Every structure is written in C-alpha cells, then in structure tokens.
C-alpha cells in the first residue's frame, strides 16, 4: 500500500487538521467529537442542514459546508458512519431556532447513528427532520436487503436544500424538497479498480486486470455483477440504461446529469463519459438542462465513475443555480 499518510489510524484526524489549517477562515473544525461547521453558524432563523458519513468520500460531506449548502458535516472514521454524539454536537452547534434537517445516506450504520442522534436532539428540544437518500439502482430488489444505497443524489440534495434554506424556507419545505430530489434521482456506478482502506492495507474488492464491477457501492461493496472491461461507450450505455429505465426517465424530461469520479479516475475520462451520456440521452429525447462533472463523492482511490440523473423542474433548476460557496462547489457568489 502506497499512500500519502502517516499512521493509518491517524488519517482522518490528520486530514481534519489540514482542513482547519487550509480553511480556518470559513470553517470551524471541531474534534472529539469531530465536525466541520460553517464559521458563521448558527444563523438565526435559517433552517440548518447537517449531513455526514464515513470519511473517504471527499469532498463529500465536509467540502460542502458553507453558504448555500451544508451548515455542518460529521466525518466518521473511513467508511464508518459518524457516532450519535458527533451528529448531536453538530446539530446543537448549527441550530438557529428554525430547526435542523439531517440528510442521511441509506446505509445501516448511518441510518441508526443518525436516528439515535435525532432522538437525543429532540430530547433537548431541537426540532429535527431526517431524510434518507436511497438513489442507487444497482440493487433491484429492496425488500430483501438493507434497501437501495444513498449515492450521487446526496450531493444534489445537499446543494438544492442548502439553497432553499438560504432563502429562509421553513424546515418542512426544505425536508420535502429533499424527498423530492431523492424521489426524482437515480444513480449507478462502476468500479475499474478497488479502493484500499488505510487500516486494512489491501484492496477491498478483488478485481482482475480485465474485470469491472458493475453497480459498485462507494465503499467497494460488490454491486450487480462482475463484467469484462469494456469501452466507455458500452459502460455508459449500460449504466445510463439501468438508470433511465428505473425511474423511468422519458422523452422530453429535463434532467441534471451528474458524472462523478470515484477518486482514482482522471477528469479527462469523466468528460469522455459525459460525452457518451450526452449523446445517449439526446437519442432518447432526454434534455440535459444542468450538469456536474467531477469527483464529488469518491471511494478513496477507486477508479471508476457513477452517473446520477435528476429530473428537474423550474424550482429545482433555480435552487441548483443559486449561489454556493464551499470548498467543493462554488458559483454565483
């Protein structure tokens, strides 16, 4: 294992110290329990938005803390959900009296830890709503599993809800928007190589040199099937078809197309993917009205990508376009 780290068990703490050193002017970094909080929080009368999850997906979630997006992020250990006391401390720190929305990705650990945190916060009189994101179409049968995983739609939900909160929309409406984004978004990913968790020191997924994992999760958990490596054209066709058929998206739909790198794939290849996606959607009469291309929700050093499509209406498009000032996304300000 070659990584730019010191001791494997210190990676998260060392990185948080780096975030504090780099962005201390706009972000407050707390440790024990760990959180990254907007420097100007709490904002009176604004719904606060808190998210979090295991580390290793950067810039998600800490890179999305700032004006127009999250008020706080709770980083867990690598690929391990944050603990309830972390989420509770962050919730307390950002509550400006208008309530707090917790955006949770649908993984067993995340759901339970955030549930416990929400219970504790409510005991303290903080008004909390919680929305679980589950947009991954790789898992076709949700009844006999922990349910579909929360992936790319999380980034879109955090951006759109953050903009709504900035406009002083009330908690119930911001939560409803979050559910709307989740309901209108579908994603799927593919891994070309495994990631390596520093504390484990070897690849999580055993992928041969000519194999790809279709429908991979963002922790290297297996997906739909193992396939032989293929061209970007064929891979995008398979991913996009699974996504489009699932919602389904149809002729005349306006969408936000999000091509996301998983950490080990160059931007050059992501644009090759975007080009294939653009052509394929055009042939089906689906209009890309907004796009996002880059590595925003990663799986450490995994090579591969995910595609997320979100059905847009004027409200969602306007909230997407609203100003955002974070280390991960920044425009309009």
């Amino acid at each position, binding site marked *: 294992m070659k990584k730019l780290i010191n001791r494997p068990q210190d990676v998260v703490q060392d990185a948080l110290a780096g975030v504090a050193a780099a962005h201390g002017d706009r972000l407050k970094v707390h440790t024990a329990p760990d959180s990254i909080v907007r420097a100007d929080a709490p904002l009176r009368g604004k719904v606060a938005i808190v998210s979090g999850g295991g580390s290793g997906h950067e810039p998600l979630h800490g890179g999305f803390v700032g004006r127009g997006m999250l008020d706080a992020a709770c980083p867990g250990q690598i690929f*391990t959900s944050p*603990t*309830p006391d972390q989420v509770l401390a962050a919730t307390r720190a950002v509550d400006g009296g208008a309530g707090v929305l917790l955006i949770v990705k649908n993984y*067993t650990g995340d759901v339970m830890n955030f549930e416990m945190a929400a219970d504790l916060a409510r005991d303290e009189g903080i008004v909390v709503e919680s929305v679980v994101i589950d947009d991954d179409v790789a898992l076709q049968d949700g009844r006999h599993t922990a349910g579909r*995983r929360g992936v790319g739609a999380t980034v879109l939900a955090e951006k759109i809800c953050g903009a709504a909160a900035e406009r002083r929309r009330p908690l119930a409406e911001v939560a409803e928007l979050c559910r709307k984004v989740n309901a209108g978004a579908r994603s799927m990913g593919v891994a070309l190589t495994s990631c390596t968790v520093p504390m484990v020191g070897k690849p999580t997924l055993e992928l041969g040199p000519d194999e790809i994992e279709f429908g991979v999760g963002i922790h*290297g*958990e*297996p*997906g739909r099937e193992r396939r032989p490596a293929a061209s970007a054209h064929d891979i995008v066709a398979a991913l996009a078809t699974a996504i489009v058929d699932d919602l389904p998206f149809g002729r005349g739909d306006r969408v936000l197309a999000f091509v996301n790198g998983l950490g080990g794939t160059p931007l050059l290849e992501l644009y090759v993917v975007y080009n294939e996606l653009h052509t394929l959607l055009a042939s089906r009469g689906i209009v890309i009205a907004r796009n996002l291309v880059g590595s925003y929700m990663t799986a450490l050093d995994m090579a591969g990508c995910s595609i997320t499509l979100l059905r847009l209406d004027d409200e969602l498009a306007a909230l997407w376009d609203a100003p955002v000032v974070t280390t991960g996304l920044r425009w309009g300000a």
Partner: protein
Amino acid sequence: MTAADQGTGPGDGSGARREAITRGDVVAWMRAFAAAVARDRDHLTELDAAIGDADHGINMERGMQAVLGRLDALDALGELAGGGVGELLKTVGMTLVSSVGGAAGPLYGTLLLQMGSAAGQASELTLADWASALAAGVSGAQARGKAELADKTMIDALVPAAEALQAGAASGLSLAEALRQSAAAAQRGMEATVPLVARKGRASYLGERSAGHQDPGATSSWLLLHAAATALPAGLAP
C-alpha cells in the same frame, strides 16, 4: 490484571462460586471481551471483508479500547466498585455508541444500554435478573436494527443466547452452567449464519453471494457471550 482478580467480590466464606453478578463481574466481562476482540480483530475484519466493508474488527477494537479507557478512568477516580450494575452497563453502552460508529456502535451500544436499564439500581443481580437484563438488551438491539432471526446478523447469535440463559435460570441451573449454555447457543447461532443469505446490513447487497460466509456481527456477539461464560463465573468466593 486477570479476569479472576476483577471478578472477585466480597465472598460468603464458603468457597463456593457466587451466584450473583456484581459490578466487578461486569468489569471482568468487558476486559475479557476486549481481550477477545483484540485477539480476533483480524479474523473479524476478514469475515467482514468477505461480505461487508472490512472494518468490523477495527471498529470493535477501537470501541473496546475506549471502554477499557473509561473503566480505567473510573478506577482511578475510585468509582469503579461502588454503585449499581445497571449504571456501569449504561456507561459501557454509551462509550460504545460514541466510539464504534458504523452499525455495530448503535447495536452493541443499545444492547448494553437496555441491559443497564433493565438491571436498574441493584448492586448484585441473580441469574434470573441477569437473564432478564440480557433479554431486554437483545430486544433493544433487535428493535434498533429491525432484524429478524435468520437475516444473517448478530441477532442470530444473541437471541438463542438470551433464550438459553432464561431457560437455564428457569430450570435452576447454576450461574456458571447457564452462562456456558448461553455461550454454546450463541456459537450454534453464529455457525448457522454461514449458509444464510443476508437480508440486513451491507452484506445484503450481495444477495445470494453472501451465502457461505459466517456473519462477522454474529461472530463478535459470540465472543461477547463467550467472554461472559469465562469471566462472570470466575468470581469464586474467597
């Protein structure tokens, strides 16, 4: 410090095994579990790598190290011995909740917290009290994770263990024998997870591919019950 040192409480002078569980016994149990988790850390992580995300041993070790730290801190303050059994179980539960993360943190944390609530203020618990407390803890963990038997989770080891302990208490077994039977039931439950298809947690994403692997959560739960069988009846009265 050995488990026996920790488990030794004020005796009745008869030289017989004590039939009650004290705070000292809980400390001995947690030290034995921490040692087992540290010993089997890589094994737990390898089981998790096969069907999960390869961090179960790491997370459990981090949590139990935090528990040991908390126990040592209480010891340094002279607060380890006094007080109720329930309070100590809750302290352990809160420590796990705030240090493990993942799914195991809330599940083991809830198990210990609910055991603590059921144990109440008593400074000594009989086998029947202890069996009721374990049953309450297991139901708490089951409610938190919404898992059923045969979903291939820790519940598959915990439920039979709690049932065996209650059956042992009802049929008048000694504490030591009841704990042994409880640990044996946990082991059978753990081994029975091998052919199951997971329906909860990250292993469920694998569908049929999860069959043929022993569940890591059921394995750490067996370690917990096995630690109880080895550490708790070690409290030989002097």
